[in-house]
């Protein structure tokens, strides 16, 4: 646990020091803000709940893209610059390395999401929404972003090439996010299995975005995060045998 905390502090410091974290944040917030302005605020009158839905649709997407973008460097860059050797030859377990890196990226993602808070506040000023709706929406953003982070971290553990990791991570996230549209074309039981595994349409768009908090949705995201972090740990471990 101590090693996790040490690695967490270093990685969070790296995000705060390097331009990468801030550039990703700035670009995504800019896109989020512009799309929110044009789709939710700038086209006639809307119900506050609809505007909030649109906001969380955009912010959920930003959270996923940000999750993948922030996670890609975590292991691949260390392999590329050879600094991973320091972690590998220190009395630190692979699970502590992955946990420290994941938590640092998650905290930075939360900082990024926190910077969007002014948008729901704007809706509150001009309309009527509750903090509960906002909190549930943000919980969904964090969970879907954390899942993307875990998937990206696994992709990052697979290779030393950040570009390959980015493509692999994005592809995995894109597939998991589009299982529901695919499932609709199939028959049960495959239909039920694929829609049950969908990362975006069923749970995020169907529930979190509408302010509906369902425990099994939370458990699903936690399971996805656990699964991909476990894969990342096992990948690190396996690389030592190669």
């Amino acid at each position: 646990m101590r090693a996790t905390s040490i690695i967490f502090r270093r990685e969070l410091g790296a995000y705060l020091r390097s331009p990468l974290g801030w550039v990703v944040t700035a670009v995504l917030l800019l896109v989020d803000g512009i799309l929110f302005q044009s789709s939710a605020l700038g086209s006639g009158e809307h119900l506050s709940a609809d505007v909030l839905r649109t906001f969380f649709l955009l912010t959920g997407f930003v959270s996923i893209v940000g999750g993948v973008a922030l996670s890609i460097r975590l292991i691949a860059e260390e392999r590329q610059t050879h600094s991973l050797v320091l972690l590998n030859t220190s009395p630190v377990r692979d699970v502590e390395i992955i946990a420290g890196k994941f938590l640092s990226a998650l905290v930075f993602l939360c900082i990024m999401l926190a910077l969007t808070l002014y948008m729901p506040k704007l809706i509150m000023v001009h309309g009527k929404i509750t903090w509960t709706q906002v909190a549930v929406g943000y919980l969904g953003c964090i969970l879907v972003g954390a899942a993307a982070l875990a998937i990206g971290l696994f992709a990052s553990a697979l290779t030393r090439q950040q570009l390959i990791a980015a493509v692999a991570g994005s592809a995995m996230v894109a597939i998991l996010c589009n299982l529901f549209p695919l499932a609709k074309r199939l028959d049960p039981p495959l239909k039920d299995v694929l829609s049950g595994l969908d990362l975006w349409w069923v749970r995020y768009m169907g529930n979190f975005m509408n302010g509906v908090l369902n425990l099994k949705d939370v458990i699903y995201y936690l399971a996805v995060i656990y699964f991909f972090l476990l894969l990342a740990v096992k990948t690190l471990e396996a690389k030592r045998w190669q």
Partner: protein
Amino acid sequence: MIRVQDLSKFYGGKRALGPVSFEIADGETVGFLGLNGAGKTTALRILACDLRPSAGTVSVGGVDAVAEPHDVRKLIGFLPENPPVYGDMHVVDYLRFAAELRGMRRPEFAKRLPEVLDITQLGDVQDDVISTLSHGYRQRVGVAQAIIHNPKFLILDEPTRGLDPVQIVEMRNLIHDLKQSHTVLISSHILTEISQTCDRLIVLGGGKILGVGSETELAAQETEIRQVTVAVRPPNSDADTRKTIADALAKLDGVAAVAEPYEQGGGLLYTLSTSKDVRAEVSRAVVGAGWDLIKLDYSRSELENTFIRLVGGNDASN
């Protein structure tokens, strides 16, 4: 003490090391000598628990490095070929990070830091960002992270690689200082570089141990070591053919090692380390396999070429 028994490492189907066995006593300074691809780095990475062996046992300070790598890592400081530094960190912050990873508390680190900065002469740049440092200074930072927790065993993989002559002398002096308080393992492909620093040399070639002893002892074995250079022109020179030829040469009686071939004069040049004159056997094997034999040399060179002869000399042209 470090005790290695029948250690092997395969990358895919290719044997990179072994089987090798050796022992290193506490307080000893041992050099791993070998050309590129000899297995030095693989051996050191296994000892540093950065890599797991495919077979064999490794015991460091009485702890099994395969079963208990976590405990062995506490005893070791490792400088790999490329210093494992984070370019975005300041020198002192990086050393604090490395120390904390090795379980040091902040007061312990604060006490140890001036000593390490003094040994590695990093005092002037302690507040600099690592990415702004020269290669020589980065190498020093790499050494500093390896010794910050005062490990019992210090493993330095090619510590003088890429350094200029002045920096090499400084690094040599630094290693000399470190010898006083650590068991040191150093690798290099330059004989003179480590023969001055080490009590004992382990010469590796083709993943196997070709000789063990001090420089004088190795030179005394010299009459038993010969070198045969053979240039072969096969129908094609793809990787499979190169390997087929190397395997055929390695099977011959008296051949200790076959170095990686390189192309020269339209053929593939192989250098063999042998215990006797095997020119006749080589020519029969090459011609018998249907390859053209375009050159065959035999040499018993002088003491200064001990290392080249031992390891097969595949990089002698570099």
